[in-house]
């Protein structure tokens, strides 16, 4: 039985510093402040098959609530420079962010493709080009600034993921946050890291560590983003696909909109989670710590004590 995800996000008031161009930046900023309800279909054509989901989006007053047909009862609040995740009322993780920079300064060239009609409304179409390759097509509602359709592209200029609204209601919705903003444990933002500051055009923006010792670093090129996790134990990835890349063994899981690669080094478990197209993920993986067999004793020790 599939349980619903209720994801509540209070969008942090951050200037849209993505530097895609004045007009597009203005539209995106307007979209952050818009009030609307929508149903969005996410459909991704991955090497492991099609992954799709239906997501309901409600946004008002800078607060965003997502309800998906695809996951557990998890709630997320993001805002005031931090975020928290709760599940069934219990704290799962939290962290703070001092200024959400976009990363990947000016890595994208924006091509305006003119006005189009979408859901019976006027919209503007844009093409994001990275390193000379078209990487995303955005269709933005002209009145609200909301991205009503986003198509990300493979290196072969084929559709990787498509996110498109199938309905849009600009009436202000009512958001039920279920009181999850009551979490008051201090966030843990890690200041130092041995990870590279830049990987293939992706800038290291910030990094976190939770109480269980899970560390993760967040990278972004201004549009696509990924997180690199270092975990004290191996990540459980049921129904994953074993893949070999540059003589390293990984396990891979695609979901609608994200892919996760999991592997082990001698010192920790590793995972890379991101919304990049497959070729960009592989480019990033090549610059990350490579898989190593931790050995029987280390596996045993991690299983017992973490």
């Amino acid at each position: 039985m599939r349980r619903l995800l209720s994801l509540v996000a209070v969008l942090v008031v951050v200037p849209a510093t993505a530097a895609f161009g004045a007009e597009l930046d203005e539209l995106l900023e307007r979209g952050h402040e818009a009030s609307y309800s929508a149903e969005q279909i996410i459909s991704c054509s991955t090497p492991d098959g099609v992954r799709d989901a239906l997501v309901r989006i409600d946004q008002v007053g800078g607060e965003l609530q997502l309800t998906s047909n695809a996951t557990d009862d998890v709630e997320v609040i993001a805002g005031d420079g931090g975020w928290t995740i709760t599940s069934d009322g219990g704290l799962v993780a939290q962290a703070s962010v001092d200024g959400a920079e976009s990363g990947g300064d000016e890595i994208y060239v924006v091509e305006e493709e003119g006005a189009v009609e979408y859901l019976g409304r006027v919209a503007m179409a844009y093409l994001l080009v990275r390193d000379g390759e078209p990487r995303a097509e955005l269709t933005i509602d002209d009145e609200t600034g909301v991205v009503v359709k986003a198509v990300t592209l493979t290196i072969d200029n084929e559709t990787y993921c498509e996110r498109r609204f199938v309905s849009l209601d600009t009436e202000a919705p009512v958001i039920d946050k279920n009181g999850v903003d009551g979490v008051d444990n201090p966030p843990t933002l890690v200041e130092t890291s041995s990870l590279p500051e830049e990987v293939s055009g992706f800038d290291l923006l910030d990094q976190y560590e939770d109480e269980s010792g899970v560390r993760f670093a967040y990278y972004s090129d201004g549009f696509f983003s990924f997180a690199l996790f270092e975990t004290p134990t191996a990540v459980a990835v049921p129904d994953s696909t074993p893949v070999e890349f540059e003589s390293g063994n990984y396990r891979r899981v695609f979901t609608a909109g994200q892919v996760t690669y999991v592997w082990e080094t001698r010192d920790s478990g590793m995972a890379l989670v991101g919304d990049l197209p497959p070729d960009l993920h592989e480019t990033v993986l090549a610059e990350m710590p490579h898989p190593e067999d931790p050995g029987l004793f280390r596996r045993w020790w991690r299983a017992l004590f973490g």
Partner: protein
Amino acid sequence: MIHPTEQISAYLDGELHGQELTRLMDHLSRCGRCSADLEQMQFVRSAVRSLPVLELPEALIPEAEPVVVPLRRHKGMWAGVAAAAVVAAVALAAIVTPPPDEISLQQLNSMVGARSTLDPVFGPAKVSAFPVVEE
């Protein structure tokens, strides 16, 4: 007549006391042979004790060099005890230590999804569905 040769030897070794010593003294006073044996035995002992103590040259006794002989039996025993103690300690720690929380894919994706909401361009263009949880 029985001559108490062993008692004479014991007497010279200082091992006769009480009635045994009295009886030997009585016998020696009446037996010339035993008195002669006693004198001869005392002479021999005195002569042996008066000999000088000789130290052999080291070259003649190479095998006599002091050798540290490992107590293999004891060392092996203690190594076994130590190994058993370590195993027992680890086993005990494994029992009393709560098993590490399993890190799920959903947890990782949730954290990434939450962090992504802070991206300036976050919005419908960045929404991802989290993994399906089957019950």
